[in-house]
């Protein structure tokens, strides 16, 4: 484990997370999580509601700080970073895809995809416009580039969200029920898209899902129950087929 962090995209060692620390109602949600994802992995995180999936995803995504334990992202000790450095690392190394798309409704599809680059570089330039166009082309939304995010369908919005998550060429993409809000057809399309990015770009994916059908299509399935990883297995069906 000691030399693993440098090679891994993501490495958690003994990560615990408590809420209400120091109060009588202190509750520990994550009880010592050890998890390592290497470059190019396509992993599913499953578990019942309230098992701590979203909390774990927030900790990994640097939206929340672990109460104890170590966290390495892209070889960097993320647990030791201050707020500003953590924000910078999050912008650079992690892409988010949320269940409800969470696009900025006041902006067009293209502008939504540009936003992480804009936040990082401070001002618009032609290169980021080009990158955003290419990403939208990749998710098949070229005709909807200049449509307001609020004016396109749910499936399209989720594809914009995927394009946005990839804008900074992150090492790791965290997806929280990316297809939970979509019909089967759209869910499959979104899933296929993520898989395609994973294969062609080598981007590591960690996907929280309730849908056993989709989980079965991932390389690896990590199961979380009551804040503990109860099973972590390679999905041989997929690996053999792939």
């Amino acid at each position, binding site marked *: 484990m000691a030399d693993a962090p440098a090679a891994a995209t993501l490495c958690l060692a003994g990560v615990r997370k408590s809420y209400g620390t120091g109060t009588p109602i202190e509750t520990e949600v994550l009880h010592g999580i050890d998890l390592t994802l290497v470059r190019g992995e396509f992993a599913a995180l499953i578990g019942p509601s309230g098992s701590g999936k979203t909390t774990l995803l927030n900790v990994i995504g640097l939206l*929340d700080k672990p109460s104890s334990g170590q966290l390495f992202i892209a070889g960097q000790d993320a647990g030791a970073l201050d707020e500003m450095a953590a924000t910078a690392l999050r*912008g650079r190394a992690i892409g988010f895809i949320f269940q409800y798309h969470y696009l900025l409704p006041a902006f067009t599809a293209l502008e939504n995809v540009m936003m992480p680059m804009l936040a990082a570089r401070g001002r618009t330039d032609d290169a980021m416009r080009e990158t955003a166009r290419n990403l939208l082309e990749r998710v098949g939304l070229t005709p909807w580039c200049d449509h307001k995010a609020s004016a396109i369908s749910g499936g399209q919005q989720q594809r914009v969200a995927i394009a946005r998550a990839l804008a900074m060429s992150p090492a790791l993409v965290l997806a929280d029920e990316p297809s939970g809000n979509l019909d089967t057809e759209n869910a499959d399309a979104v899933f296929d898209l993520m898989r395609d990015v994973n294969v062609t770009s080598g981007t590591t994916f960690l996907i929280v899902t309730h849908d056993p059908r989709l989980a079965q299509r991932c390389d690896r399935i990590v199961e979380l129950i009551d804040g503990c990883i109860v099973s972590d297995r390679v999905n041989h069906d997929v690996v053999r087929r792939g």
Partner: protein
Amino acid sequence: MNPLAWFEAIVAFRFMREGLTQTLLIVFGVALGAGVIIFMSALLAGMQANIVRRTLNFQAPIEILAPEQVARPLRDGRSGSVTAQVQPRSQQLRSVDQWQKVRGAVAKIPGVVGVTPIVAGPGFAQRGDATKSVTITGIEIESYFDVIALPDKIVTGREDVGPLDIIIGTELAKDLGTTVGDKLSLTTARGIASTLTVIGIFDFGNKGVNERNVYVSLRTAQNLLDLTGGASAIEVKVQDPFAAETIAQIIRGGTDLEVDSWIRTNAQFFSAMAAQILANTLIRIFVGLTVALGIASVLVVSVVQKGKEIGILRAMGTARAQVLRVFLIQGAFMGLIGALAGSLLAWGFLLLWRGVAKNPDGTPLFIVVIEPSLFAIACAGATLVGILAAAIPARRAARLDPAVAIRG
């Protein structure tokens, strides 16, 4: 470098456009506030300038007089106690001691732009059966017009009074039924009389002055008032009328003379003006505060409404400082645009005022100068108020926990 290409500006303007109704309402509110402040300030400045101008029309900012004569109480030689109370003595018309020297010395004081000797005293103007009591002012035409703009006030005739000439006001001319070229007799209490020709009629826009003041040459007044070679007062004009008291004190310090500044002689007007300024300042503060609270409350609501979007922005790597600036820009913009609109509003009202506030004869009640610097200061001030008002909501936005904000 297009500032609108900056991340913070792009997000700020999009947020404002998204909540367009809110934005427009608050901009309108700021506009009203800024408009009221600008309008009031311009009006007050106009009113003050007007009163100052009207007062200093016929009154020199500083007047130097001979020291008052005082009667000493009688004291007991040994104990020093007062043995008899003496009534204050009556003041006779006296010349300023060595007035030529005083004049030379005062002219050298920085800020002084005109010095002139006068001889002033009471008298009667008589024509036919009509007699009017007047204040005779003997003037030295070479220097007097540097202090009082009498030539500008002449409505008929001319102003260069010779030894046998007199200039009178419009009211007196009416009362005595005289016009330019007529003769009238001027008599003083000492029984000295002189027949003078009216060469000019002035109008200072003040009935009392037009009725009472008459101007003759210095020499004529000296003869009439039995003050040969003397000057009963020296009048001084200063660059800045409001510095008159300071300069008066300098003169007072160097001599034992009586020095009156118009600030002292018009103390009532100045206390009224001070009260007006205070009231205006208070109104400015409260309107400013109201504007600030309006902007702050709109932004507080906006932070709550945009919580999820702020969370998304933060998740995408937007720094806290960037979120802070997004909201500060909104505050500054609302302040600035509001003030610009307010400037237009105030400008319109001032034009309207000019058209409405008129004397019965059609001349403006007072001249309101539309000062560009006032608008510039108002806009800068409103922008600053906007930024300050945005500080609290902006800090709240920056401190939002993205994980909590996204979950909503």
